[in-house]
């Protein structure tokens, strides 16, 4: 089915199941420990043995020698796969650095060997017996240095993405009020709870990978390319993922090594990447340096706005475009948004939840707060005053459906914004300095083609099969809701099978496109199945209705079960009409913090997000997506930073104690309000994603609240005590 034009009224506008808060259908399995994650498939491939990964101890250079003898003769060892003995593997479009390195090493903890043994303990012990020597090269590990060099040597910029509208420089120079500030954000880690894990088994030339992957079709294509085999001979199965956040968009070396090791050992092999390897072996979010310049008149009307972002990556890698949201957020006829990429020899940087926009908001939304203060204006009124009619970076593009102003107004009312004191450092409760902050949020609403197969059995039960994944987002439940609604059955009568590459190719989970895209694919398959049912019954497909397990047409009624078994498959695709629109999701984010006047410790007391993201398919799970994103944003604002060793080129704090993500005690009261909006441009369900919208803005709201509480503006994230306390007012 092709979506060719914005839709009018649909069955979802009178929905009984879609749009209603619904408990996860996978909840009983997850809470009882029965949901099978990748490493836990004792039910498949008998005779599984264990693989253990060895990572490079240098960041750049080559392996001089590897002594494998001791490892090979260690108890229980079945095979040792080493970089020095393995022909180079194929590459894929989905990875920048080779997943299995050697002899050249392109980043720290790049995999260089894998030991397979009967038990995990034996594999681990034997891996420690491999002796590797290296020829280490010097590398470039400092983003601030490459950016400094790029100022005079443009060859240091390896790619750029620049969008201009009008003449920013002249308009900025002429502006009565100017902001020109630079913000820095650190490298961050996805740090999902389940490390990368795969069980691989061969049957002849056919390979099955039980793995943890967000994008099944991409993963299958990548494995085919890396192993130089037809993708038809590869099956991926990933029904449950212990989180991904972009880190599992791509297959990682656990899958590659499990496949190689299973072949070498002649046994199914299971590998879970050791937690300590994940930070340097796999991808991370790029650090950024962002310069924001805003020129406004004395009333706060923005005339010129520029947001430029610098990041670094391995040769051939992509950038972190922190300026992305600034193309859509505020009116300003003369604008410039740009992302510049330099080269670093750190591990590969790649997509993490709201790539670009998540760190981008930490700059632009603080700059707006700084502008408001300079103008003596309320920061909400400043934003409302500069609400654009069309896309500021390309005024010929319309917004599909945008209610950012309403988000700000509803949020202000609900949060009690009127009680905020605009002069910083004026609210004191005992030892605590208290402040409030606000930020706007924008994240693109992407939509991807997505397929599904929907079947009715002889009992009238519905089953849905699609290679869509549920990474905690609630895909199982919204897909079941969609199928139940379309086929007129109860939610309990729908079963959902996800993550298997034998099923139709879906949009997968990424870029907050999953919910809108995958449900549209299920809808397309259901429309086809309904047509087949009416044809079988001799009903008019235009007038037949499906409800309560029955199919009605004029005066005739038959049970849906009478049509089974019957199966339909379809894929939803999209027409070019969407190019006329900027499809986005919008939010206002609020935070109240208390800062210890003596120690500089920041406590988040309250957070609120007001979201405009089209139809909310399942308010219960959508709210969870948003509060979870707010937690991750709190981490980005206050604690999360991969510390770079700039001498040897690696992330030092590569474990869950050193890389500090928020814990229970860090998070106060959280509220979410969904505006009841519908976006008919994006897809038939009129829904958009929220999972990344939720991380776009809360960090800036926290930073602005800290400023409001203390009068200290820290522009170098995370806002840790050491940076804050030096500037804090005297206590006495």
């Amino acid at each position, binding site marked *: 089915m092709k979506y060719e034009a914005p839709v009018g009224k649909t069955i979802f506008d009178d929905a009984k199941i879609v749009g209603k808060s619904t408990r996860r259908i996978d909840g009983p399995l997850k809470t009882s420990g029965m949901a099978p994650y990748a*490493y836990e498939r004792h039910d498949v491939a008998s005779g599984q043995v264990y693989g253990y990964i060895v990572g490079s101890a240098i960041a750049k250079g080559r392996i001089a020698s590897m002594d494998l003898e001791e490892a090979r003769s260690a108890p229980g060892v079945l095979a040792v796969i080493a970089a020095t003995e393995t022909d180079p593997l194929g590459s894929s479009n989905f990875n920048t650095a080779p997943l299995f390195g050697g002899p050249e090493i392109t980043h720290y903890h790049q995999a260089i060997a894998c030991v397979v043994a*009967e038990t995990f303990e034996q594999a681990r012990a034997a891996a420690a017996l491999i002796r590797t020597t290296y020829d280490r090269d010097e590398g470039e590990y400092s983003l601030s240095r490459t950016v400094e060099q790029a100022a005079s040597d443009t060859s240091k910029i390896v790619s750029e993405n620049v969008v201009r509208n009008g003449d920013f420089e002249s308009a900025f120079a002429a502006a009565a009020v100017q902001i020109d500030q630079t913000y820095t954000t650190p490298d961050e880690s996805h740090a999902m*709870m389940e490390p990368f894990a795969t069980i691989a088994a061969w049957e002849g030339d056919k390979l099955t990978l039980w793995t943890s992957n967000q994008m099944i079709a991409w993963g299958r294509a990548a494995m085919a390319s890396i192993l130089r085999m037809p993708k038809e001979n590869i099956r991926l199965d990933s029904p449950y993922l212990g989180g991904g956040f972009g880190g599992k968009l791509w297959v990682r070396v656990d899958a590659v090594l499990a496949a190689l090791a299973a072949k070498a050992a002649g046994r199914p092999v299971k590998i879970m990447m050791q937690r300590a390897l994940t930070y340097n072996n796999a991808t991370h979010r790029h650090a950024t340096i962002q310069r924001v310049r805003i020129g406004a008149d004395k009333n706060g009307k923005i005339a010129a706005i520029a947001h430029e972002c610098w990041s670094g990556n391995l040769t051939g890698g992509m950038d972190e475009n922190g300026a992305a949201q600034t193309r859509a957020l505020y009116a300003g006829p003369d604008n410039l948004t740009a992302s510049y990429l330099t080269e670093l020899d750190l591990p590969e940087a790649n997509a993490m939840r709201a790539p670009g926009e998540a760190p981008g908001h930490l700059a632009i939304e603080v700059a707006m707060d700084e502008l408001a203060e300079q103008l003596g204006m309320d920061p909400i009124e400043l934003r409302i005053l500069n609400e654009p009619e069309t896309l500021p970076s390309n005024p010929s593009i319309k917004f599909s459906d945008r209610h950012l102003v309403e988000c700000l107004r509803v949020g202000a009312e609900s949060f009690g914004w009127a009680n905020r004191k605009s002069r910083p450092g004026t609210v004191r409760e005992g030892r605590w300095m208290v402040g409030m902050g606000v930020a706007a949020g924008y994240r693109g609403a992407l939509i991807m083609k997505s397929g599904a197969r929907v079947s009715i059995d002889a009992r009238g039960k519905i089953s849905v099969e699609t290679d869509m994944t549920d990474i905690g987002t609630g895909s199982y439940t919204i897909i079941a809701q969609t199928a139940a609604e379309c086929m007129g059955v109860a939610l309990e009568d729908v079963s959902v099978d996800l993550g298997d590459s034998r099923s139709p190719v879906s949009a997968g989970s990424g870029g907050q496109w999953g919910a809108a895209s995958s449900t549209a694919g299920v809808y397309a398959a259901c429309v086809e199945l309904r047509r087949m049912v009416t044809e079988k019954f001799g009903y008019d497909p235009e007038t037949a209705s499906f409800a309560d397990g029955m199919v009605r047409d004029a005066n005739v009624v038959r049970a849906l079960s009478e049509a089974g078994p019957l199966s339909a498959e379809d894929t939803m695709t999209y027409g070019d009409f969407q190019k006329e629109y900027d499809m986005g999701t919008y939010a206002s984010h609020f935070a109240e913090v208390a800062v210890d006047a003596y120690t500089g410790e920041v406590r988040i007391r309250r957070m609120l997000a007001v979201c405009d993201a089209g139809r909310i398919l399942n308010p219960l*799970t959508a709210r969870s997506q948003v*509060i979870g994103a707010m*937690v991750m944003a709190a981490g980005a604002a206050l604690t999360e930073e991969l510390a770079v060793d700039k001498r040897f080129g690696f992330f030092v704090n590569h*474990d869950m104690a050193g890389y500090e993500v928020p814990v229970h005690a860090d998070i106060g009261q959280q509220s979410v309000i969904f505006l009841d909006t519908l976006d008919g441009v994006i897809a038939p369900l009129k829904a958009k994603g929220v999972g990344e919208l939720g991380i776009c803005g809360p960090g800036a709201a926290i930073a602005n609240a800290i400023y409001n509480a203390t009068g200290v503006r820290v522009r170098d994230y995370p806002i840790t005590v050491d940076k804050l306390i030096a500037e804090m007012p005297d206590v006495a």
Partner: protein
Amino acid sequence: MSDWNLSVTRRGLLTSSAAVLSIAPAIRARAASQSSAGATTLPVTFEVNGQERMLRLDPRTTLLDALREHLKLTGTKKGCDHGQCGACTVIVNGERINSCLSLAVQHAGDQVTTIEGLGTPDDLHPLQEAFIEHDGYQCGYCTPGQICSAVAMLGEIERGIPSHVTGDLSKAVSATNMEVRERMSGNICRCGAYSNIAAAIADVAEG
């Protein structure tokens, strides 16, 4: 239960470890001449979810891997294997522990409760039910650890054990929001379901 286990003293273990080190090449040679699986194993017996289980384990096997790999009780999760994330939390003799931080052979005679022992999809524990109702999870990977931790944590409050945030040590401790959040902070949820987890625990704590 193995008498051998009980007779091991710390001093004895250290001495024998040193001995093992000095004869390591000999052991390797022997292992290599045996079957490829020739691992040294020790017997251990403990109770898991009310059932006595006897295992012969490589002494390096953690309680976590004994549960996941040997007893195939995969509800207990491996998140970090370093005691940093809490995903592997189980209840041993009524106390919550990180099962990745203790060796299985240390648990001879112990009573271990895992998520599978708390409830099943058809017969859920009240906390499992509350997690579903409040959506106290997303990816679900930290969830068994959160639930096991919460069950034991409520027991700690009931026994009057204070925490870092307990205001008045002379009064009975109660399961306030801050007490619960403080005490649950060893269980990381990267999906960020903390508010919903707190709501689920509050439901059960209030009865």
